[in-house]
């Protein structure tokens, strides 16, 4: 308690300092401008981040993060073997390398030398094995372990030496490294206890109140360069206005998920928006196994009805990238050569006529629970469909109804997905038995191509196989993917070091790289 008293005073002092700094600057430039990119970082200070959402469900569990603040905490405490860089490419983290054998059935993990847990123990092969066993525990599989558990044979895997493990798979899996780079597969020590959580991340646990805040201190021996700031607070914010006010008043230095319409306003008040590309999408989902969507001509017609740019401009306030009915835009195998689909009402009408559906009348189920852009794009779709003579009845369902009994069996609805690469995405959405196959897409040729690609060790040939698979989805799939969201966060001009990142919000929550700007 004494410690928290001291830090509370620090926070307050900082708040006052910020306030004073803001008020003290002369004349019209009453707010600080964005610092020069070249400004050297300063050590010290207490950094506060305002995270969106959270509540009593908040947890510090490494393998079961539920809320957005949970994810931001995971990123401070734990680290996976590999990680995603700002371009959404894999780079080493706790492991210095993870390499497959010739047929992708054995993967060798080489652990980085001298990576320390917060309690001082060095990471060994045993810790890694323990972590993988915990995340794939059949009785309590972590959210990042579901796919891993289907391929990993831990009992047949071997610890070669304290820094080397050979993982045995039950079938070839070409992109195991992508599964190991998820934040939900962090490495924990064998003596892990969630009441005093310990990992290898840049910040160590100090204090936690579910639904309110969490407090961390710098991990001095962090392998990737200790954090610039001494302490980190992550506050839960249920309300957008409170979150933005806290940023503008200098009580937090950054916030995630700034509402799109505020991007312009905060720039006049001493803060800067942070815009990142993402692979997150809010598709329309058509069930390919029920009429009228079982007719591929109807699906193609509906895809041609969509004015994608209008959806991005209006449903996402312009913060989006065009979609082409394909997902995983950052995957090296993304089929960017397929022609961009644009609105073509004549073609759509003609397809509907061929299918005998000139006066098509369908129900579209949406819900505000799907997230930003969902209801807005559904409304736009109703308008756009009218031009082609299609009547779309909008059913705005309550969250409990939308994700209730009929979730995954709506004929025509929406859903949300975050950034994923192609093979993991297919496994969760587009093959028989996939957990969230909203479109009931089960093309045998497609499935065969995917299976072949998972086994294919040669990257060029694998890319070709995945490209062929994407052509099938482009021509017959049940998704209408009109765009990918841009992530919008914000930070105070009194801090620096946050940069756009394609994986997670707010510079991948990498507050170890953030520092205060020296006041002159």
């Amino acid at each position, binding site marked *: 308690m004494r410690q928290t008293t001291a830090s509370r005073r620090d926070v307050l002092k900082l708040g006052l300092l910020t306030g004073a700094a803001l*008020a003290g600057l002369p004349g019209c430039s009453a707010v600080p401008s964005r610092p020069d990119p070249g400004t050297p970082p300063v050590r010290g200070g207490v950094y506060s981040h305002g995270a969106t959402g959270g509540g009593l469900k908040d947890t510090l569990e490494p393998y079961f993060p539920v809320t957005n603040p949970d994810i931001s905490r995971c990123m401070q405490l734990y680290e996976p073997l590999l990680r995603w860089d700002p371009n959404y490419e894999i780079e080493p983290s706790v492991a210095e390398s993870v390499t497959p054998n010739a047929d992708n059935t054995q993967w060798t993990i080489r652990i980085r030398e001298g990576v320390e847990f917060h309690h001082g123990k060095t990471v060994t092969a045993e810790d890694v094995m323990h972590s993988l066993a915990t995340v794939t525990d059949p009785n309590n599989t972590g959210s990042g372990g579901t796919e891993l558990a289907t391929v990993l044979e831990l009992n047949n895997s071997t610890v070669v030496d304290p820094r080397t493990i050979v993982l045995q798979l039950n079938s070839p899996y070409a992109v195991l490294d992508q599964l190991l780079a998820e934040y939900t597969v962090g490495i924990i020590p064998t003596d892990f206890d969630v009441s005093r959580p310990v990992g290898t991340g840049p910040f160590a646990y100090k204090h936690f109140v579910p639904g*309110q805040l969490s407090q961390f201190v710098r991990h001095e021996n962090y392998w990737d360069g200790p954090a610039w700031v001494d302490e980190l607070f992550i506050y839960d914010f249920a309300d957008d206005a409170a979150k933005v006010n806290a940023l503008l008043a200098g*009580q937090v230095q950054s916030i995630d998920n700034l509402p799109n319409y505020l991007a312009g306003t905060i720039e006049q008040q001493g803060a800067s928006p942070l815009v990142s590309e993402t692979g997150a999408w809010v598709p329309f989902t058509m069930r390919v196994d029920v009429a009228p969507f079982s007719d591929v001509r109807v699906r193609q017609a509906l895809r041609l009805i969509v004015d994608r740019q209008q959806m991005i401009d209006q449903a996402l306030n312009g913060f989006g990238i065009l979609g082409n009915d394909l997902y995983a835009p950052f995957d090296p195998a993304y089929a960017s050569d397929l022609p961009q689909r644009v609105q073509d009402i004549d073609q759509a009408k003609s397809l509907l006529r061929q299918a005998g559906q000139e006066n098509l009348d369908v129900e579209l189920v949406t819900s505000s629970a799907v997230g930003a852009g969902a209801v807005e794009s559904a409304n736009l779709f109703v308008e756009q469909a009218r031009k082609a003579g299609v009547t779309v009845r909008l059913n705005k369902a309550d969250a*409990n109804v939308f994700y209730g009994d009929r979730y995954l069996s709506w004929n025509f609805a929406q859903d949300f997905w975050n950034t994923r690469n192609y093979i993991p995405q297919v496994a969760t959405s587009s093959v028989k038995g996939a957990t969230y196959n909203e479109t009931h897409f089960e093309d045998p040729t497609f499935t065969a191509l995917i299976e072949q690609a998972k086994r294919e060790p040669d990257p060029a040939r694998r890319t070709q196989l995945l490209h062929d698979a994407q052509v099938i989805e482009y021509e017959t799939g049940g998704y209408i993917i009109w765009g990918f969201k841009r992530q919008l966060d914000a930070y105070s001009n009194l801090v620096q070091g946050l940069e756009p990142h394609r994986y997670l919000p707010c510079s991948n929550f990498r507050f170890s790289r953030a520092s205060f700007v020296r006041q002159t």
Partner: protein
Amino acid sequence: MTDLLTSDQATETPVRPPARAGSAWLKWFARRIGLAVLTLWLCSVLVFFATAALGDPVRAILGKDYASSPERVAALQAELHLDRPVIVRYFEWLGGLLTGDLGNSVANGLPVGELVGDRIVNSAVLVIVSAIVMIPVAFGIAMVSANNRGKRTDGVIQIVMITLAGLPEFVVGILLVALFSTTVMHLLPAVTIAGGGAPPWFVPASMILPVLTLVIAVAPYVARIVRSSLLEVLDSDYVELARLKGVPERIVMRKHALLNAIVPGIQVIALQLAWLAGGIVIVEYLFSYPGIGASLVDSVRNSDFPMVQVLAMVIAAVYVGVNLLADVLSILFTPRARTAITS
């Protein structure tokens, strides 16, 4: 809650009426408390059956995961004793409520008492501090206004009061934050995030804006009611007589008018305080204040039935308790009503 209030009253009241009237007072109190308990019991029936007995709570709690994790379904059914009949569950819950065993939160498994305890205190502090600031302010405004009846001061005050009463509290809050914290000046904290999980009132500066917002939301109503009852009293014969007798105007105002105008004031203050207990949700959201309002919204969103039930009962208890207190105070301040009970 009610027990606490009544014991306070019981120690204080026998002093005033003559000794032989004691039993009449006792009877009156017993009746009032009986009614309060009955109200609360009816609330408990409503709260329980509206939350736990309608539909399948497990389905509501798990939502998307209901189909995919049968083991969690089983665990939750056991936790909520869903195998037993509704009536049995109700009486078990009521028994737990009365003995202080509030059950566990479904969202994170911790005891409800532990989760809501601090938040009840935080909300109570916010409401009480607001009341302490609001009551003298409202009475002061009412007195100035009544004193200057028909003059320009009164007119200006009335217009300002009506305008403020018409503004929703989130608009007031946002304006105050823009004025004092973000856009115009940077004087006060915009949100109440005291470091280290300490209660917000440990950092008094951060309490100023939430309290001010609530005062502005509530004071106009109270001020207007008190003003109109003051005017009524000032027009009465006995005030006229006091003036004719040469009692100075200041004393007329304080002794003769204000004391008699206080009763309607108490009633409206009680109503406003009771409203605050449940109605501070928006203020708590806007200032990230860790109180029961925000917690109730979160719990409803999580379908966290044990939490919702307890918080709903707490708010109901505050309503009943505050109204009971207001009735008692009104009786004590009204000589005619006081004697009516004893005779």
